[in-house]
């Protein structure tokens, strides 16, 4: 299906999110849309999908101008969308979510669960996207929820598939699998509009690339004719360092010591299995691993958000295994949670309020139980400009921010605090290259001020760029701790549960890990 957008303009109040955007997607093409955080990519896609109505401009499918009053109309015209923030019903099962809105029914309008389940099974087989149709979505890790979203779009037989940052929560293997799916989809004449911040991916999978900045199209190119660094500077409008420069670490005394940490999930299964490690002040330990191997639980255990089944966590020699989250915050633990919408933000509140969410009751933001709103606004403004959060003002609700700018709010909050230990999970998820550069530099700064840093990331590039030491975690246990010089392949293998001598030991990985 050929898509032509012409002159699409969308404003929010006085903010111009999209400014006369023209975009053509040919049949059988994978078209990547690149742009800074807040450039207007998601807004453009929402317009295309009928979720928002453009102020002006036309959408044409195969040469015919169409209007989508709602997403249903877009779906009927063969458009499918996987949203940047999942639009799933948490208390429904995977099957229910996939068929939602297009439910196969039996007599009397009863939901035909068996057929729904069979459909999902078929699609997930076909595309290699494994999920349990009967699992409740709220119980699934982010990565799997994303898979459900993709399944959902595929099940509607979309001719034009919009993928808004689908890979930001996928593992490298899942990403590869997705690309294979995408390629096979376009062979059959479908087209794909694909948004990402990962330039490597763009070059690997896209046929043509359109770059947006500040609501307008900067240009269109092909993946053969361009390079990563050129794309980066096109997006940001200046040249970008794709790799942070950092001095070698000068580790000081032990700040964080984790001994025999064991965590069980709700069903009593061991998800973190006798993990021990130490992090010294002035060094960055990167916990690398494929999503769902226990890193999230380690993160939560460090911050006091889940019960620890066994083991000890000490911060500067003080046992904090059972300390409350508040006590840990006050002891200087800063935390960038993995799921920004769920754990990091109150989207119905303003940027200023979110920037002080965990220090709202201490000086200078409050005194004697009274908030100092002027100070809150003031420091908010400062952080907004420091971290380049793109929004009208500090009084804007976080729900209206672009995905990357929401992430910047959290990072800004956590990195501008006095820290002894920084625990950051996927700190640059969804950020554009310019912002990644900046956040990485700030994290290194935190390290150089003497704090211990734990980075939890499934992004190999990030792990290699930041980690002074890299602990690879697999099935709840640490496989090995290596330096960044060992190379991508070795770490990739470890992440898959293959130990150093190359022997496939995915079954015995847990035992050999320690």
């Amino acid at each position, binding site marked *: 299906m050929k898509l032509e957008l012409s002159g699409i303009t969308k404003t929010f109040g006085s*903010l111009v999110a999209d400014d006369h955007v023209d975009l053509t997607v040919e049949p059988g093409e994978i078209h990547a849309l690149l742009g800074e955080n*807040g450039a207007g990519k998601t807004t453009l896609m929402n317009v295309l999908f009928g979720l928002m109505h453009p102020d002006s401009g036309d959408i044409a499918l195969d040469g015919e101008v169409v209007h989508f009053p709602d997403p249903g109309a877009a779906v009927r015209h063969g458009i499918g969308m996987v949203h940047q923030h999942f639009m799933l019903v948490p208390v429904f099962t995977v099957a229910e979510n996939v068929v939602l809105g297009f439910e196969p029914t039996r007599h009397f309008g009863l939901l035909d669960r068996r057929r729904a389940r069979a459909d999902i099974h078929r699609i997930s087989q076909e595309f290699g996207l494994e999920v349990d149709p009967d699992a409740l979505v709220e119980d699934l890790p982010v990565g799997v929820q994303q898979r459900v979203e993709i399944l959902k779009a595929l099940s509607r037989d979309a001719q034009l598939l919009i993928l808004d940052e689908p890979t930001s929560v996928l593992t490298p293997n899942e990403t590869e699998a997705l690309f294979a799916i995408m390629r096979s989809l376009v062979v059959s004449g479908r087209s794909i509009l694909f948004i990402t911040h990962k330039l490597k991916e763009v070059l690997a999978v896209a046929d043509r690339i359109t770059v947006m900045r500040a609501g307008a199209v900067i*240009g269109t190119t092909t993946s053969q004719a361009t390079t990563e660094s050129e794309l980066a500077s096109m997006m940001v409008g200046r040249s970008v360092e794709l790799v942070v420069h950092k001095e070698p670490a000068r580790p000081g005394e032990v700040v964080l010591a984790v001994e025999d940490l064991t965590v069980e999930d709700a069903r009593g299964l061991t998800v973190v299995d006798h993990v021990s490690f130490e992090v010294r002040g002035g060094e960055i330990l990167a916990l690398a691993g494929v999503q769902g191997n226990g890193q999230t639980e380690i993160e939560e255990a460090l911050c006091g958000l889940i019960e620890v089944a066994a083991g000890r966590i000490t911060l500067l020699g003080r046992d904090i295994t059972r300390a409350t*989250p*508040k006590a840990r915050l006050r002891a200087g633990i800063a935390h960038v949670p993995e799921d920004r919408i769920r754990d990091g933000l109150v989207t119905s509140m303003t940027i200023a309020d979110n920037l002080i969410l965990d220090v709202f009751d201490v000086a200078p933001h409050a005194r004697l*139980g009274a908030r100092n*709103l002027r100070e809150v606004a003031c420091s908010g403004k400062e952080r907004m400009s420091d971290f380049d959060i793109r929004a009208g003002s500090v009084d804007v609700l976080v729900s209206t921010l672009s995905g990357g700018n929401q992430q910047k709010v959290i990072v800004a909050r956590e990195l501008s605090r006095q820290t002894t230990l920084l625990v950051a999970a996927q700190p640059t998820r969804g950020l554009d290259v310019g912002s990644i550069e900046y956040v990485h530099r700030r994290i290194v700064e935190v390290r150089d001020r003497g704090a211990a840093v734990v980075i939890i990331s499934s992004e190999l590039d990030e792990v290699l760029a930041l980690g002074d030491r890299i602990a690879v975690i697999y099935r709840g246990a640490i496989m090995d701790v290596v330096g960044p010089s060992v190379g991508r392949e070795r770490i990739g293998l470890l992440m898959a549960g293959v130990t150093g001598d190359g022997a496939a030991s995915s079954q015995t990985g847990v035992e050999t890990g320690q």
Partner: protein
Amino acid sequence: MSDTGFTVPAAAPPASTSPVKANAPRGWSRFFHWMVEANVVMVTALAIFSGLFVGAVLIIATQANVLHAWSLLFSHPGTTVSVTFFTVGDAYRDLFTGSLGDPFVIGHAIATGHGWGQALTPLSETLLYASPLCVAGLAVGLGFRTGMFNIGGQGQLIAGAMAASYVGFEIDPPAIIHVPLCILAGFAGGAVAGFIPGFLKARTGAHEVIVTIMLNYVFLNLLVLALTTQPFQQPHQANAVGRTIFGSAELPHIFGQNLRVNVGVFIAIACALGVSWLLRRGTLGFGFRVVGANQDAAKVAGINVRRATILVLVISGGLAGLAGMISLCGSDYFLSAGYGGTVGFDCITVALLGRNRPIGIVLGSLLFAALNVGGRYMQASTGIPLDLASVIQAIIVFFVATPGLVNEVYRLRGMNVGQGLLTRGWAA
């Protein structure tokens, strides 16, 4: 970017700075901004208009003389119009003068300096009615703003009134001590009643809606039990009537003995200011709001979710108890079965009317009270039943609570009225 694969459109924008909105206003202008933005004034005015309009239709449809006049529509259209006009006009005039005062009587009082008592009686009654309603409305609004659906206003109000009445009839210190003690007792009584659902929710996850509704029955019947036993029952009484509080416990009248309006008005204003401060400026209130909006994020931010849950309901219950105290020590002076009447539920309506904002709740309770007080006067003088005033009230609330409906009916354009008023669903 020139000699590479890029095809560049004619007008590429300069390097990245996203368009920036004008700075948001602050203080009063910010409040005004909010009202305009949320379109509150317009929607509320239209809602009141709608209520009065439907009320007029009902008067026409139910009053025999008007109906008769309409049967003459074709023979004597003039009569139809004038009878309709005068009947509806009289009813609404009475509604107005009965709640706010008669302009002529007030004018006379101003001119002669006499008759102030009569001139201000309607206003006094309206304020008297509004005070407890406002405080109870604040209790509900505070809950709603923090994700807590406190439907237990009635029970908490009774608990507060019982505590206040006990202090009121059991001891007899001078008023300067007695009144503050009653205030404290009223708050404490309601707070205890609010603590129960708060504790249960924090500990076991029991939903506060169910628990508070059930507690309403508990307190209603506990009251009956208390009123038929000592020490609450009036001596030498077989009925369920409470002992009268000492004069020193009565809330002092503001404008002399003849006008019943009392310092309960000041208590209500203080509560409104307090709640407003708590939500806008208080760290405690900020924590409440975060917990109400996103418990997970609250937990990560180190906020004690259980403590906040309990505290919200304790404060909310305390306010409802204070409302009970205001009506007990301000106008009733003794308890009776079913004490509080419908205030425990009307306060939910008032909170909705005021969109859960303190200033809105103050205005909402005044409107509600005026319609009630005026409606009674209307009933007495024109025979149009008080129920009509209730219908008008209901319709106003109906329209205020569904801004989208007003938008539809009156085709407001470009207005941001689509947002509902409860930010979260019941499964908070």
